[in-house]
C-alpha cells in the first residue's frame, strides 16, 4: 500500500476541484440555452423546471465550495427581489388563487433563473456560446415559421382573399400549441440582438461574421410576415435605439452596427420585393389603413377602459396574476370578439398586481437602465461587453414598445426567460476575471 505525502493529496484534490469547476463552467452554456429553448417551445414544462432546479442545487454547492468572485448587489438585484416579494403578496391577495398560482411559480422560477445566470455566467466564452446557441435557435424557429407561412399564405390567397393582413390569425409562425400568435411573435423580436452581437464579436473573421446575417434576415423576414403593427414598431425601436445608444456612448462598433443593419435591411427589402409580401407589409406599416386595423385599435381602447374599471376595485395589490380575463368578461364592448388580455404591459401590471406591483416592476425597469448605463461606463475598453449591454438595452426598449399594444412579457415563458437572461447579463457589473476581456480585445479599435 503506497501513501502520498499530504501536500500531493491536497494538490490532487485542488486540481480535481478545478477541473470539475471548469466543466461546470462550460455546462452553464447548454443549461442556460436549454432552459431558454425549452421554455420557449414547451412553456412551464415540469421536465425543464425540475431539471433546472436540480442543476441549481449542484451549482449552489459549487458556489459554496469554490472561490467565486464577490457579488455586489445592485439596483437590478434589489428591485428584482422586491418584484418577487410583491408578487408573493399579490398571490396571497389574489381574487382567484387557482389562476395566480401559476404566476407566482413563474416569478419564482424567473428569479431562480436570474440568480443562476447572475452567479454562474462569469466568462466571455460562456456568453458567446449561449449567444451562438440562441442565434441558432432563432434561425431554426424563423426558418420553420417562414416555411409554414408560405403554405398558409398560399391557402389564404387561393381562396380569393387579397389582403393577408386581415387573416393574421390563420398564420402559425411555428408557435407552440395553445400559444396565441400575438404573444408568440414577440419571441422573434427578442431573438434579434443575438446574431447582431455575434457579428460584432466575430467581425474580424469576416467570413464567419457575415454568416450571422442569415439568422438576422430570417428573423426580420418572420417579423415582416407577422403583419403586426406593434412588432413592426418594436423592431424599428430596436434599430433606432441601438444606433442612438452606440452613438451616444461613443462605441467604436457604431460603424459596424450600421453596416450590419444596413445589409440586413437591404437583404430583407430584396426578399420582400421578390415575394408578394411587400404590399401587406406596407399595409401593416400604414397603421390605420384597413377596417381590421381600426377595429383592433378601438377594441384595445375599449379594453383599456374596462381595465381601468377593474383597477378601481382592487387598487393596491390588484386582482392577482392571470385574473384579468375573469374580471373583464364582456369588457370588450361593441361587436368585438372576446380578447382575454389587456394588451398593455403596464395596464396588465396595474390590474393584476396593483399599484404596489406596478411600482416594483417600474423600479426593476429603471434599475435595469441605470445599471446598464453605469456598466457601459464601467467596462470601458471591453468593446464587446459594451455592445452586449447596449444592444440588450435597445432590446428591452423594443420589448416595452411591443408590450404597449400587446402584453407578452408576462404571458410568454420564452420571452420572459430571455428577458431575465438579459437582466442578469447586464446586472453582471463586477470586474471580469482575468482573461474575461481577452477575446474582446480582438474586436477593439
Amino acid at each position, binding site marked *: 500500500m503506497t501513501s502520498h505525502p499530504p501536500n500531493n493529496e491536497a494538490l490532487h484534490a485542488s486540481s480535481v476541484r478545478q477541473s470539475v469547476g471548469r466543466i461546470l463552467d462550460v455546462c452553464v452554456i447548454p443549461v442556460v440555452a436549454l432552459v431558454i429553448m425549452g421554455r420557449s417551445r414547451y412553456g412551464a414544462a*415540469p421536465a425543464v*423546471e*425540475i431539471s433546472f*432546479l436540480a442543476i*441549481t*442545487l449542484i451549482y*449552489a454547492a459549487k*458556489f*459554496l465550495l469554490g*472561490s*467565486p*468572485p*464577490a*457579488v455586489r448587489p445592485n439596483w437590478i438585484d434589489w428591485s428584482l*427581489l422586491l418584484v*418577487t416579494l410583491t408578487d*408573493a403578496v399579490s398571490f396571497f391577495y389574489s381574487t*382567484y*388563487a*387557482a*389562476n395566480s*398560482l*401559476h404566476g*407566482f*411559480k413563474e416569478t*419564482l*422560477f424567473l*428569479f*431562480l433563473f436570474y*440568480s443562476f445566470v447572475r*452567479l454562474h455566467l462569469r466568462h466571455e466564452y460562456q456568453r458567446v456560446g449561449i449567444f451562438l446557441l440562441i442565434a441558432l435557435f432563432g434561425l431554426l424557429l424563423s426558418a420553420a415559421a417562414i416555411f409554414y407561412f408560405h403554405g398558409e399564405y398560399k*391557402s389564404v390567397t387561393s*381562396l*380569393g*382573399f387579397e*389582403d393577408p393582413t*386581415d*387573416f393574421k*390569425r*390563420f398564420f402559425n409562425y411555428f408557435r407552440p400549441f*395553445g400559444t396565441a400568435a400575438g404573444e408568440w411573435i414577440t419571441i422573434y423580436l427578442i431573438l434579434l440582438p443575438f446574431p447582431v452581437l455575434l457579428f460584432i464579436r466575430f467581425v474580424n473573421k469576416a467570413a464567419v461574421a457575415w454568416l450571422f446575417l442569415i439568422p438576422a434576415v430570417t428573423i426580420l423576414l418572420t417579423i415582416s410576415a407577422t403583419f403586426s403593427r406593434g412588432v413592426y414598431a418594436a423592431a424599428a425601436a430596436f434599430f433606432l435605439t441601438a444606433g442612438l445608444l452606440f452613438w451616444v456612448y461613443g462605441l467604436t462598433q457604431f460603424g459596424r452596427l450600421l453596416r450590419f443593419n444596413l445589409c440586413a435591411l437591404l437583404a430583407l427589402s430584396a426578399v420582400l420585393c421578390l415575394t408578394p409580401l411587400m404590399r401587406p407589409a406596407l399595409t401593416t406599416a400604414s397603421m390605420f389603413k384597413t*377596417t*381590421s386595423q381600426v*377595429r383592433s385599435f378601438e377594441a384595445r381602447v375599449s379594453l383599456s377602459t374596462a381595465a381601468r374599471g377593474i383597477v378601481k376595485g382592487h387598487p393596491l395589490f390588484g386582482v392577482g396574476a*392571470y385574473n384579468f*380575463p*375573469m*374580471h373583464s*368578461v*364582456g369588457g*370588450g364592448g361593441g*361587436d368585438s370578439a*372576446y380578447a*382575454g*388580455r389587456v394588451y398593455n404591459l403596464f395596464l396588465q401590471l396595474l390590474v393584476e398586481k396593483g399599484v404596489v406591483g406596478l411600482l416594483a416592476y417600474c423600479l426593476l425597469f429603471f434599475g435595469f437602465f441605470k445599471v446598464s448605463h453605469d456598466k457601459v461606463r464601467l467596462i470601458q475598453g471591453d468593446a464587446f461587453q459594451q455592445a452586449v449591454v447596449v444592444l440588450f438595452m435597445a432590446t428591452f426598449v423594443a420589448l416595452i414598445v411591443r408590450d404597449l399594444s400587446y402584453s407578452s412579457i408576462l404571458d410568454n415563458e420564452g420571452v420572459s426567460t430571455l428577458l431575465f437572461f438579459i437582466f442578469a447579463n447586464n446586472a453582471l457589473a463586477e470586474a471580469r476575471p482575468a482573461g474575461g476581456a481577452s477575446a474582446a480585445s480582438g474586436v477593439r479599435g
Partner: protein
Amino acid sequence: MSFSKKIVALIPTALALTLYAYAYAESARERQAAGAFQQFGRRLEQKQFSAASRDVERAVGLSPANAYYLANRGLLHARMLRGKFDAAAFLEDRLAFADDDLRQIEAAAQHYEKALALNPLDDSFQHNLGWLYSFLRKREQALNCFQRAVSIDGSVALYHLSLGLAYEQRGDRQLADGEYVLAVRLSPATLDSRFFHDLRERSPGAAGRVIAESISHLEEELRRSPSPVVKGKLGKLYLQVNSPGAASAMLKQATAELPNLSRPWYNLGTIYETQGDDTTARACYEKAVFLDGGDASAWWRLGNYYDRHHNVRAAARAYTRAVDGWMRMRSEHAGRVLHIYRARSIVTDDLAPNGFLAYCSPSLNIPEICQRLAKLYEETGDIGLSSYYEDLSNSLTP
C-alpha cells in the same frame, strides 16, 4: 469571498427554492386535477355518467377551489336529467320532474352556487343556475340569475333568449320580445334556430315584430357608425324578410370591408345558391368554412354542392365536418374558459338545460345528414363508417 458571505449571497436563492417547492407541489396537484377533468370531459361527451362523476370528484378533490370544476360537477347532475329542453312545456308550465330528477336538479344548483361563491362573475354559471331554479319553480331567483348573466356579459345572445323565455313564462310579452330583439341583433343566426321556429309558430306577430325591430335598430346603428359587422347582420335580416337585393348589397359591402367574418360569406353563399349561381355560392361557403371550421351549416351547404355535382368523396368530407361541427357545438363561454380558468381542456357544451345550446343555434337535420353520409360512405366502400353514421342517425332520430 468568505464562506459566510457565500451563504448570505445564496439566501435569496434558497428562499425562492423553498417557495418554489411549495408552488410546484401545488401546481402538480393542479396538473393531476386537470388530467382528471380532461377524462371527465370525454366521458361526459360519451354520456358515461358514473365514470364522469368519478373523474370530476377526483378533479374537485385535488383542486377544491377551482370554480370551473365545481360548476361542471353541477353540469354533470344537469346532464343526468331525462329528456331534453322542451320550450313549450316550460312556457305552459307543464314541466314535471320525477323525484330522482328533482334531486339531481337540487344537487346541480348547489354545485353552481358553490362555484359562484368562488367566481361570482361567471355569466354561464349564473345562466345555468337560472334554469335550475326555474325547474325548481324558484322563479324570482331564476329571473335574478338570468338578469345577472346578462349584466355580466350582455353580448351573449343565448342569455337574452333565456331571460326572454323567463319573461314570456310570466306573461311579460313586451319584456320578452325586448330580449328576443337583443338576441337577434347580437346574433341574427338565431333566426335559423329551433327557438325562432317555435316563436314563429306560437306567436307569428311577435316573431315579425322581433325581426322588424331588429332591422330598425341595426339600421339606426349603421347610420351612426358604418360598421361592416352591422352590415353583415343587416344583410342576414334583409334575407329573412325576402329582400335579396338589399341583403346581397349589404353582405357584399360587409365582406369587402371585413373579409375575415365567416357568417356574411355563408349568407352571401345562400343568396347565390338561390339565384342558381352554384360556383360563386361554393366559393362563398369555402371561405366561410375556412374562417370558421366549426360552422356546421356552411359545411352542410358545401356538402350539398358536392353531392349535387356527384363528387362523392368531397361531399362525404363536408357532411362529416358538418356532423362533427354540430356534435362539438361550443358555447361562447366554453371558448373563454381557456382564458378565464387557465383550463387545459373544456366541455364544449357547458350550458344547462340539456339541448338548450342546440335549440338556440341554427338548426340542421343531423339524422338526415347522417343517413346521407351512410349512403355516401357505402358508395366509397367504407362499410365501417357507413354503419357508424347509420347508427348515429338512428340514435339521433327523436
